[in-house]
């Protein structure tokens, strides 16, 4: 990762391709779950989960490669610890949503309001993904990466 002239920039670019896939898909789903875009059918919008999952896969794999390449930049970095914490919050939130509410979303009528538990899941998702992005961006500022 650190000796090749292309490996790091390539992974960085891929990380920033996964980012909009994740933020775009998850963000549009979260808005609907929070009840803000009710004109968009709920059963259709939750199908965008697969694009969010592709975004997560790309960013987690490239993120892991950054860590393997230069662990010293991250292991003691407070911004990195905060990033992983909110990543865990986001993933646990998705897991709870999938197991308790995922299927129910498909049974709602297209313009139905969502239950309160789904509104909470959408808000937690949006807040935690933003904080993952924020602390990722803060790696060199709050911490001392790069």
């Amino acid at each position, binding site marked *: 990762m650190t000796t090749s002239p292309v490996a790091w920039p390539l992974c960085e670019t891929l990380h920033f391709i996964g980012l909009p896939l994740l933020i775009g898909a998850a963000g*549009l789903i979260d808005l609907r779950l929070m009840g803000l875009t009710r004109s968009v059918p709920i059963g*259709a919008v939750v199908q965008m989960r697969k*694009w969010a999952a592709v975004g997560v896969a790309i960013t987690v794999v490239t993120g892991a490669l950054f860590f393997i390449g230069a662990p010293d930049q991250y292991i003691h970095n407070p911004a990195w610890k905060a990033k992983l914490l909110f990543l865990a919050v986001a993933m646990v939130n998705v897991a709870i949503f999938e197991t308790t509410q995922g299927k129910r979303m498909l049974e709602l009528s297209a313009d139905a309001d969502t239950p309160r538990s789904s509104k909470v899941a959408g808000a937690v998702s949006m807040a935690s993904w933003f904080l993952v992005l924020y602390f990722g961006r803060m790696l060199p500022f709050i911490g001392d990466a790069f």
Partner: protein
Amino acid sequence: MMEFLNSLGASSFSTWLRESPSIWAYPAVLTLHTLGLGVLVGANWMVDLRVLGFARALPMSLFERAFPIMWSGFWLNAATGVLLFVADPMKATTTIFMWKPAIIAVSVIPRSLTS
């Protein structure tokens, strides 16, 4: 041109953006630029994927909601992009710098004409 870039870079606002230890200077602008990237490109790709024939169950009403979101991401990034340029005007002397506004024009102009 070089004179303009030099004086812009030497201005107190540019110096503050670039050198202030406050996380409300350069780090905040960079974070907002990254958030805008996610919002603009992300919402755009969802529409593009639908246009390309994926997720056909998604109706056109999604587009009506996605376009204002895309434009808010665009203007957030136009504003923070200008600030990032002001913080480091010498970027304009590199070849790769000119590619970016050119490619942005290519992606925005057809969108503006058709929407």
